[in-house]
């Protein structure tokens, strides 16, 4: 009887607590993800709560956290990049702790996880691009240290074979490898690790191209960009663009030479970012931001654009007056998608603009919308 009382008392309590504490807000039903706009949300870095939202071109609401919905587990880090190779998608996942980064390979239609490529092969993945049938390159920093010795290890490209869902090779490159662009059979790569190189890798042989420096037999594994660079993008003239410091740099991928260095604006406090091409690949959009010391360090900035044949980049007529955390251009609807992050502790928004800067609408997505993939 004593024990009976004890058990009865405990089980009532257990049942009560099960109902009270185990009821979480419910999720909506999953749906196929064949078409639309994938929004890459970085999440808050130490919360490891990045996610991917899906926005259809006509809807003003987003399906949130689609990877979690389908796979019943989260990305476990920021959504750093996304690319599709035939019917598969590669999601780059950046966790705040060393050794927990990964690439999730998903069915591009259903978002169901097919394989996970994990550390130590994947460490600080930065960008991904399709380089051939069943083949993708992922730039990785490797394990990083602490400022000022942040980039301790050489960067590398993880070569992913999508037919086997595995990493076949690691191509060692400059420190802090970052942006990637495929031109013909050549992949161009920028870096953030103060080696300032634009490197070139043959996508068929995975060989790193060696450049003569002119003097005697000295060689270099890339051409000098004069600074760290990020995203690379290929315009309608088949020229590559990237931002180096406060300049937009135009590169001829055929001759591997720098054709132009255009100063962006004139404000020394500001820096350009998020260089993004329009659908016709003739206009480049960019953010231009700073923390205003005169206004208690409030972050300020606007969105500007210039043409690929322009010879200067004035910042007199903003396309939009907001500080954006990511840009993307949808060729199909001819709209600019701009991610806005009020703070990394609340959901952000995607603003849709026509090319002339006319606002179409805004849609709430998730934390830190910073990249887009249009399909």
């Amino acid at each position, binding site marked *: 009887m*004593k024990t009976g009382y004890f058990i009865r008392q405990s089980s009532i309590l257990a049942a009560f607590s099960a109902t009270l504490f185990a009821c979480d807000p419910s999720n909506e039903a999953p749906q196929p993800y064949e078409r639309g706009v994938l929004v890459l949300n970085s999440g808050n870095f*130490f919360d490891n709560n990045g996610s991917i939202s899906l926005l259809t071109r006509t809807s003003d609401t987003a399906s949130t956290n689609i990877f979690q919905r389908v796979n019943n587990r989260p990305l476990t880090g920021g959504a750093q990049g996304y690319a599709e190779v035939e019917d598969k998608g590669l999601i780059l996942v950046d966790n705040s702790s060393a050794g927990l980064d990964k690439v999730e390979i998903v069915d591009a239609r259903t978002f169901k996880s097919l394989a996970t490529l994990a550390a130590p092969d994947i460490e600080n993945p930065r960008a991904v691009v399709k380089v051939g049938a069943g083949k993708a390159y992922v730039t990785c920093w490797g*394990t990083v240290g602490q400022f000022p010795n942040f980039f301790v290890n050489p960067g590398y490209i993880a070569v992913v074979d999508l037919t086997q869902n595995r990493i076949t090779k690691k191509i060692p490159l400059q420190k802090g490898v970052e942006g990637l662009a495929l031109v013909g059979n050549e992949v161009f790569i920028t870096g953030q690790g103060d080696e300032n190189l634009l490197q070139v890798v043959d996508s068929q042989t995975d060989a790193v191209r060696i450049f003569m420096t002119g003097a005697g037999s000295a060689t270099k594994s890339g051409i000098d960009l004069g600074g760290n660079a990020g995203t690379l993008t290929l315009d309608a003239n088949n020229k590559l663009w990237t931002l180096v410091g406060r300049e937009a740099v135009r590169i001829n991928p055929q001759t591997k030479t720098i054709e132009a260095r255009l100063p962006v604006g004139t404000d020394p406090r500001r820096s350009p970012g998020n260089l993004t091409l329009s659908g016709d690949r003739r206009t480049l959009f960019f953010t231009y931001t700073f923390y205003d010391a005169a206004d208690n360090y409030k972050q300020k900035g606007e969105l500007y654009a210039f043409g690929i044949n322009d010879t200067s980049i004035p910042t007199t007529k903003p396309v939009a007056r907001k500080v954006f955390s990511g840009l993307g251009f949808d060729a199909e609807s001819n709209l600019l998608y701009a991610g806005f992050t009020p703070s990394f502790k609340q959901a952000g928004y995607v603003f849709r603009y026509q090319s002339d800067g006319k606002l179409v609408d805004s849609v709430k997505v998730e934390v830190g919308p910073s990249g887009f993939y249009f399909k």
Partner: protein
Amino acid sequence: MGLGVSGKSFSQKNPGPPTPDSAITHLREVRVLGFAPERFLTGQKSQPLDSAATEQGRYQTLADWLGTQAPVAFKSYGPGQVTTAGLRGTSGVHTAVLWNGVNINSPALGLTDFSTIAVAGLDRLSVQYGAAASALGSGAVGGSLLLQTLPDWTPGWHLSLGQRLGSFQNHQSQGVLRYTTAPKHGWQLSGKTAAYGSWQRNQTPYTQRRGYPVEPSETQQRGFLQDIFLKNQRQQQVSLNLWLTDNRATLAPADPVGRELLRTQAARLLAGFETKGFSVKTGFIRDVTDYGKGATSETNPSRTVTDRWLLRAEHERTFTPGPNRQATLRLGAELTHFIAQVDEYTGRLIRENRADLYALFRYRASERLLASVNLRQAFVTGFNPPPTPSLGAEYRLIFTKKNSLSAKSSLALSYRTPTLNERYWKILGNPGLRPEQGFNKELGAVWQHTARATASLELTAFHNQISNWTYWNPERGYRVENLQDVLARGLEVTARWQRPLGKTTPGFYGQYALTRSTQQRPYDAYSSDIVGKQLPYIPRHSGTATAYLQRGRSRFTGQLQAASYRFVTFDNSQFQGGYVLVNLLVDTALRLNRVEGRLSAQAFNVFDTLVLSVKSNALPGRSFAVNLTFNLFSNPI
């Protein structure tokens, strides 16, 4: 005069479960000079933590153990990693942690990392709910945790040596020696020396749980406590308390480049003298925090050193104007000098003086009515927090031989001096910050039943408005501002029951808390998504329960710890799931003359429930521990 028997009143007020005989039992007889400051917080909820449970948790950290005893909202960064504790819908900086009456929160962070505090060597712990700044000072906004070490005046000595072996290669060793002389020439000495060391390696056989990574980490911890109390027949007492802690938490220990080391060390020394209503306390506390990453994490870390020098003088008078009437007035003054040397501060060396003046008054007006009025004024270099009064009363509506019913209520202002980081951090700190200010109101009722069964039930409602809440504002590059106003309110139920049935005594105690804590004031265009939403990491429902069966020297205990889902974002767009954790503990003791062997087998999270850290990594699942303790007594027991 002024002799509060707080040990005794504790056991009368809270007829706790019978303690398995141990050093803890003797504490019931302890007499301390003067009232503990929380005794002036009439009308507010206080929870002395169960001594049997404290004994069961003696090999754990406060981060691991306290959650089984009180509805605390922990923010844990991982096993053995930084864990902060918020009470009643507030955050870690709103929880004052006091050791022997002195605030030990890190002045740089304004909070205590509960993973660095071991239960070992502490004699009494209690949770004080709600604002208590008038009696306890800065930071007692949402609640306070009071840690005490106490003398034991029974002559003799007692040596306790123990070892814990746990899952995942998590082990702890400890030794405690207590000694008390027989009274000689009117003087008596009581001392305690305690040391412990643990190595938590977290070698889980899995690297992820249900898709969430388990972050590789390990923590080494050691501590040393030394207490000396010397008293004479004239009720004069000299006390000396030393507490050293050293905690090394390493992330990614196997990765020489990505490895991160957080070392948290503290040295705390107090010396006190009390005589006939006067007491003087002086202290020194040094907190050292080192953080480093990669190869130079040990040799070239970023360092924070803060020193505190403290001097406190108090005078207490007790008057007895008539039968059942007693008034106690305590006047106190405290001076603290802070010296901070922080690599990441502008100026690097910061010196700051703080002073407090306070008057605490407690009046028992009749058998039914008890009231208190307190006032504190703090002074800080550069700015002064506002005067902080509090007012409280308890009224016994019914008291019969078996039952009593009391109503209680309190109104209290509170404040929190901004932390040194908030004011002096390079670029981001804001020396012009104002102190946060709280206004706490609470109303409660306590029913107590004392017969063959003892039982109590306490209901409390609270409403705590905190203004000038500081916020590292991302819109301004994470510079600190007094941006938010938070309203925390809720209901709490505490129940306790025990009844001997033959040779067996079953018992139960539990707590349930309903907490709503919301940001009230819009501060930018997008804060409308945040206003009125539950603050992150604060579950709306939380509870703990312990049920036990005591028979002879054996005890079977079930613990339950539950929390509903917690949002991780201010706009409540993301959450971590709710959980119910169940622990099962079996303790038994074997005695032979002066030696006692105590064996405890513990199973934690028996249903392997998934709990996430604030980094969204999985905490390790089900685990087991065996604790073996040998107690050797000078006198036969």
